């Protein structure tokens, strides 16, 4: 029996009375590479934000390896949507990646050579080392996404939450990113990805959660990624032709 990395019970989130997530129960086993899929407004990003305590749920609880998120922060890394920040902010690629070390540093302490070395290694991993001193607005969308990924890698977490890491990136970057995610899984990490491109789900992921305000289904891709669940989630007669 594998361990449960993330356990969610009765989670309900609402923006101004309208429920965005309704009574979600979800168990994410350790070591999976999981896609969260669902239509726009299904609450995919909200689910991640509620797990990470960015949004306050009106009911329900989340535990990370059996304890509350607040106690397990160091085990978790987050890659927000690329569009959530202002890329014209006056800072460099290396500086953004260094922010990944701020959590373990805590208040007031500044990054030292040790943190800088870790940040450079993360940049190397995502193939962005030559751009380390580049002002972040001068990076392409794909490069910015890699910087965000490097920032999460530097946290050296056990569980990674990523909000649409493939949005607006070219094919090369997409392949580079998915290879890194697969490597993370190989190293025993749990990776949870909000994903939009249904065609690539079977190729990229081994676990999937269908979400549309309520949880529709969750499990191994090979068992539950089928027309039935897709239709239930997207509301229209959905046909994906998956050639095995």
């Amino acid at each position, binding site marked *: 029996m594998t361990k449960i990395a993330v356990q969610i019970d009765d989670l309900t989130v609402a923006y*101004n009375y309208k429920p965005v997530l309704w009574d979600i129960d979800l168990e994410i086993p350790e070591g999976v590479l999981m896609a969260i899929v669902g239509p726009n407004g299904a609450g995919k990003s909200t689910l991640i*934000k509620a797990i*990470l*305590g*960015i949004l306050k749920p009106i009911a329900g609880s989340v535990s990370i390896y059996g304890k509350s998120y*607040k106690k397990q*922060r160091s085990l*978790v890394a*987050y890659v*927000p949507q690329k569009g*959530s*920040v*202002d890329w014209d*902010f*006056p*800072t*460099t690629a290396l500086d*953004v990646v260094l*922010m990944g070390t*701020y*959590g373990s*540093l*805590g*208040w*007031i*302490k*500044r*990054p030292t050579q040790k943190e800088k070395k870790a940040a450079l290694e993360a940049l190397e991993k995502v193939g962005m080392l030559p751009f380390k001193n580049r*002002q972040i*607005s001068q990076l392409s969308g794909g490069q910015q996404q890699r910087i965000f990924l490097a*920032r999460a890698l530097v946290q050296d977490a056990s569980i990674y939450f990523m909000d649409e890491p493939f949005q607006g990136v070219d094919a090369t970057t997409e392949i580079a990113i998915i290879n890194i995610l697969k490597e993370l899984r190989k190293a025993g990490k749990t990776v949870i990805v909000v994903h939009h491109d249904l065609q690539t789900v079977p190729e990229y992921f081994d676990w999937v959660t269908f979400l549309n305000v309520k949880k529709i289904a969750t499990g191994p891709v090979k068992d539950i990624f089928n027309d039935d669940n897709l239709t239930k989630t997207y509301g229209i007669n959905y046909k994906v032709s998956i050639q095995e």
Partner: protein
Amino acid sequence: MDEIPAFAGIMDLKDYIQLVFSDYTLRTITLGTAILGVVTGMLGSFAVLRKQSLLGDAISHAALPGIAIAFLITGAKDSNTLLLGALVSGLIGTFWIRGIITKTHLKSDTALGLILSLFFGFGMLLLTFIQKQPNANQAGLDKYLFGQAATLIESDVWLMAIVTGVCLFVLLLFWKEFKILLFDKDYAKTLGFNTKTIDILITSFIVLAIVLGLQTVGVVLMSAMLLAPAAAARQWTNSLAKMVFLAALFGAFSGVFGTAISASQNNLSTGPVIVLVAAVFVFVSFVFSPTRGLLFKQIRFIKNRRDLELHKTLAFMYHIAETHENIAHPHEIKILNNFQGFTKGTLKKLVEKNYVTLKGTTWSLTAEGFESASNLYNQSNKKDE
């Protein structure tokens, strides 16, 4: 109403500098406006980067009723008491703005506008009420509307210096926390930082800096002190630390130059002149910054277009020359007329660069020209990959 009368009349720079060091009043005012520029420049950088440019305007207007109420309660006119009132009402205004944004559907510009006009209106009401009072002491409260640097005294400058020092200390201490809050608040939250605390810390200092400037620059113009140096500084650097430093520097110079101009000319009030000097910094930065400035952007654009035209012509020649075993084989210049974008100017430039030699009505590529043209091709091919 606000000229510094002792120095009316035009004097030359040397005399002025001597006066700054020898004259107590002028020295106090110059120091005061310089320090004010430093603290508003530093904090203004944060306001600008948080896209809260209008927050400063709302806070300074929200401070007005505090000044009036402090006067009504204490009857005193010393600046410290009044500024304490301004601080309290500025903070109340700020937290109401935050409250409106988080608790209602209203957008932040609506919240800012609402609080700004509400507090300012109430402040004006109180000011007119005070002016009607049969109390000889009330004259001069309206200096907080447009500022009156001439009334700065040594204790005011000390207060500014102390606040600036504390602000600098806090800034250095929590530099990392401020930076991550400004860039990515949600992420900072997931790392375990109490973003609310950092937020309140920054905002409180912004309120403090604004209140300090009310006496000098006034309610109406104060936000310019916050924004102008920061906006100018952003043009020159891509590093947060350098931006904050430059903004402080620009702010300080605005204060010093503004005071100097105001003191050496008749009938120019100091506050507006300081703001105008800051605006000159902004203008110069927008035009002349090497990376973001309009001028260099335009120059780069023109240069790139010229280079591109040159490259296109060279590439066209390369295609022709390629078909011959001898690359230096001469061709008629007329052929080039078939090529769109070819001008005599481009040909001349290519000759200048020693890529092409002309002989009568014919041209031929030099070895150098051939090589750079083929490199051109390799590069563009590489980019396509």
